[in-house]
């Protein structure tokens, strides 16, 4: 994984609950898994797949599709050697095709990506410490 920042890849993998692999020849992160979630006694298979990934100024970004119209835009960056992760839930019905979205948009920053996602973002959270999330304003 060459100069890849493994901490940030692991941070993304931790959010998704999957293994994330990283291509040696470019900013291409991959993950595809189905896991069973217990919804108050009802066991449901939920899929997670990274369909787009991008790195801008040492900030790692992925778009991952889940079940139905649910997707996630995950951003990982390092501040003072600590991984900070933002998680934005997306409605696929309100955005352009998720597959290859970041590669097509080529965002120079997270804010630029969010500006393009606009109405597709339904909820945003930030992870500051292990297992400690807070809702973003």
């Amino acid at each position, binding site marked *: 994984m060459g100069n890849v920042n493994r901490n940030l890849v692991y941070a993304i993998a931790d959010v998704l609950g999957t293994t994330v692999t990283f291509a040696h020849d470019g900013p291409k992160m991959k993950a595809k898994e189905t896991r069973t979630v217990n*919804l108050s006694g009802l066991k449901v298979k939920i899929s997670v797949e990274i369909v787009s990934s991008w790195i801008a100024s040492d900030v790692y970004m992925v778009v991952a599709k889940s079940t*139905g119209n649910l997707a996630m835009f995950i951003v990982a960056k390092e501040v003072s050697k600590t991984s900070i992760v933002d998680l934005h839930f997306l409605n696929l019905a309100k955005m352009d095709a998720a597959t290859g979205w970041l590669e097509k948009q080529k965002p120079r920053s997270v804010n630029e990506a969010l500006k393009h996602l606009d109405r597709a973002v339904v909820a945003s959270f930030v992870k500051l410490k292990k297992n400690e*999330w807070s809702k973003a304003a």
Partner: protein
Amino acid sequence: MLNLEEFEKLEIGDQIETRGLFPKVDQEPVVLRLAARDVNSLEFVVTYFGVTLGRWKCSNKEGALSWEM
């Protein structure tokens, strides 16, 4: 998550809320809203943060409830 008594009583528009998909992140529940029903089956529109996950069907097969997603 749904018993036979609840199965019989649910009306169109009624909602069931379950544990969320990412409980470590937020307590937002998965919401199942009853969209259609007949004697032996219920069809729910399922959402999370208002995003549609799909239509899930619950059938009563001789007293045993089974789900299709």
